């Protein structure tokens, strides 16, 4: 064996023969072949799992996920509803809101306009507009 062989990337018959002998199984191949063939049917059976079995395997996790989503939706909805009823300001009519905004506001004109029981007098409207400017 020379140094040039050491760097040679062609197959090395001497090393190949020694390695082959070292790795060769002691028993013959027939027992091994029979062993592989004994697993033939089982391997194919596992590989061709019927569709219903696949669907059945998906069914349980699917039902669980749907139930979890339903419960989560219910809880979130309930939380939102309770927060709206108990945590926010009490409902107020539009007139009351405008009136309270106008009283103490920039001028009497606006207060008179929004609190008047009868349709607004044009002079009052004009007065309010002038005051706004």
């Amino acid at each position, binding site marked *: *064996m020379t140094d040039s*062989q*050491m*760097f040679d*990337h062609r*197959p*090395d018959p*001497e*090393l*190949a023969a*020694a*390695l*082959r*002998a*070292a*790795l*060769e*199984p*002691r028993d013959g*191949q027939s027992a*091994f*072949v029979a*062993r*592989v*063939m004994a*697993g*033939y049917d089982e*391997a*194919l059976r*596992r*590989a061709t799992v019927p569709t219903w079995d696949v669907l059945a395997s998906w069914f349980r996790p699917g039902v669980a996920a749907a139930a979890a989503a339903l419960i989560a939706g219910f809880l979130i909805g309930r939380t939102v509803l309770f927060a709206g009823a108990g945590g926010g300001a009490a409902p107020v009519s539009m007139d009351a809101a405008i009136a309270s905004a106008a009283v103490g506001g920039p001028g009497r004109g606006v207060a008179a306009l929004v609190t008047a029981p009868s349709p607004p007098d044009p002079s009052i409207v004009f007065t309010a507009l002038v005051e706004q400017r």
Partner: protein
Amino acid sequence: MGSEGDDRGLVAKTLAGDRAAFGELVERYAAQARRVARAVLGDPDDADDAAQDGFLSALVKLAQYDARRPFGPWLMRIVANAATDRRRRRSVRRAEPLDPALVGGGPRPDAAAVQSELGDRLRAALAELPERRRTAVVLFDVEGYSHAEIAGMLGVPEGTVRSEVFHGRRRLRALLADWKEQVK
């Protein structure tokens, strides 16, 4: 190992449900698959388990095999992967323990045990090499695959295979040379 044309015919028959055709493929590649698995695992029983896993896995995946390519490298890739998986899973059972005397040299062997002792030393030296290196050497020198084919089997660049083969051979050739000196 059969010719590529024969292999394709057997694969086609196996896909059509011909059990005997698969049996013939197993017979053709059993020795090679067992050697490759043993190169990865060391232990012969583990190697046979892995080779069996590889054959049955190949049977299940046979429809994915591209018949334009040679069958051997495709099958050996599956066998090597099965051996590597088994090696990762193996925790309690270990490969044959290394005897330092076998790797580093020892007393001159009797003539009757010469071949057996060389085998022991080579197996011990192989076990010392990194897994990819010893697999590459065995696939190249023993099974006769090209660097490109081995690169495809191991999923590494061809240059990496060349390097692994070179370093693996250097170690094994040194051992072989020492052994030849001893038995002179």
